[in-house]
């Protein structure tokens, strides 16, 4: 890996002109199947390049084409235009069909992240079955977030960039219906009435019983 240190060699060479930078980025993105971050792109370009500007030009150039430049989290990738998917059925990747439980669990993680297993169970009203989390981890659609700083310090889950890429989202903020759900208060963690515990105890209750409070008495 070449390490560029702009401080060391200030202006030995001028950066290539913008159209040339655009060509270079086009080639780099074209060669990679996975999205590349701005940092990764910069590392591969000659010194002094400004990928952000060239990327904006490139994105405009590909807009409306059969291939588009898309943003995935902090990264960029070239992808075929969604309206042409039907033409490309021969390239279709058959993935293991996800169970309803797995899809719901994924949605809950995406909309409530970071979320603990107990919280997922509380929302679905059933235990998360073996293999569900496993499968989502394996697909690399979810990963571990920070542990919750409550007693028991439960593990949390968040969605990944691969998730964004797979579902064609620029960022987790672009999840469909996110704003409406938030406005309707459906993403709040609302403690059940009567559980007037100290916040810590409450979290512990939620985290450790792994049971919906519906079933507590």
């Amino acid at each position, binding site marked *: 890996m070449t390490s560029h240190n702009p401080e060391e060699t200030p202006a030995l060479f001028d950066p290539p002109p913008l159209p040339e930078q655009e060509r270079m980025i086009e080639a780099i993105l*074209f*060669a990679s199947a*996975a999205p590349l971050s701005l940092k990764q792109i910069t590392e591969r370009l000659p010194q002094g390049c400004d990928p952000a500007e060239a990327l904006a030009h490139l994105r405009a150039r590909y807009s409306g084409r059969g291939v588009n430049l898309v943003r995935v989290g902090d990264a960029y990738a070239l992808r075929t235009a969604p309206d042409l998917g039907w033409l490309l059925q021969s390239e279709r990747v058959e993935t293991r069909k996800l169970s309803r439980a797995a*899809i719901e669990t994924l949605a809950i993680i995406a*909309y409530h992240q970071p979320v603990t297993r107990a919280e997922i169970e509380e929302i679905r009203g059933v235990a998360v079955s073996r293999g569900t989390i496993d499968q989502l981890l394996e697909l690399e659609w979810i990963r571990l977030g920070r542990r919750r700083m409550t007693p028991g310090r439960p593990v949390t889950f968040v969605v990944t960039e691969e998730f964004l890429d797979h*579902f064609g989202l620029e960022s987790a903020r672009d999840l469909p219906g996110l704003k409406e759900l938030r406005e309707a208060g459906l993403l709040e963690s609302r403690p059940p009435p*009567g559980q007037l515990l100290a916040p810590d105890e409450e979290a512990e209750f939620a985290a450790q019983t792994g049971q919906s409070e519906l079933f507590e008495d």
Partner: protein
Amino acid sequence: MSGDWDETSMSDSTAARRAAEALIVDVAGFEGPLDLLLALSRSQKVDLRRISVLHLAEQYLAFIEEARALRIELAADYLVMAAWLAYLKSRLLLPPDPQDEGPSGAELAAHLAFQLERLQAMRKVAARLMGRDLKGRDVFVRGAPTPLALKRKVDYQASLIDLMRAYARLRTRDEFRPYAFDRSDIYPYEAALERLSQLIPAATDWTSLQSYLPEGWRGAPGRRRSAMASTFAATLELAKQGQIELRQSESFAPLHLRRRSGQ
């Protein structure tokens, strides 16, 4: 869904059996009581925010009753929910007791309605997510990522799941070991023997076995029992070697030991 149960003539065994099967299928099709409640709530055909929780509780209880009458095995959480809903129903029907400190029936009902609404919302967005233009289904990546030249760099692949599975494998194997000295409440025999051997030279007078238990192993019953067993076994070994003498005034009386004279 359970509406026409009463019409079913139970004398008609075929019809009854068919009906019972339908109910089994229905129960099996639900992912827990909350899911069942959500399905029942649809029959009210109103916004979940304006749902009648009382009516819903009655529907659920009727459903469970039918299942019981047909001797259908219900998972415990369905029954727990039934008990809770029966309780909620009574809270909703009875005038609030001013002495009562718990949450009101209305509060409990509101929370249940919130849970149902949230579950339904998650279902809807899950469907919307799956309906997006998915990579590999509607949108495609470069079919031939350029495998270009030179600078061979080996990129070792290992994902988080590999890491966790490896650790799980190791730790599971550990749990199958025939003995487990790494359990924190076990005081090993070897440790007792070593400790006792060091203390024996000073034991010129009869002293009770208890007093030889190490610090920190005299309190909690589990730990004391383990330390006692190990220390006792160690005294037998030392007695066998002729290093100590043991004395007990009667059965189950405290055991005393001292260094054997002449040692």
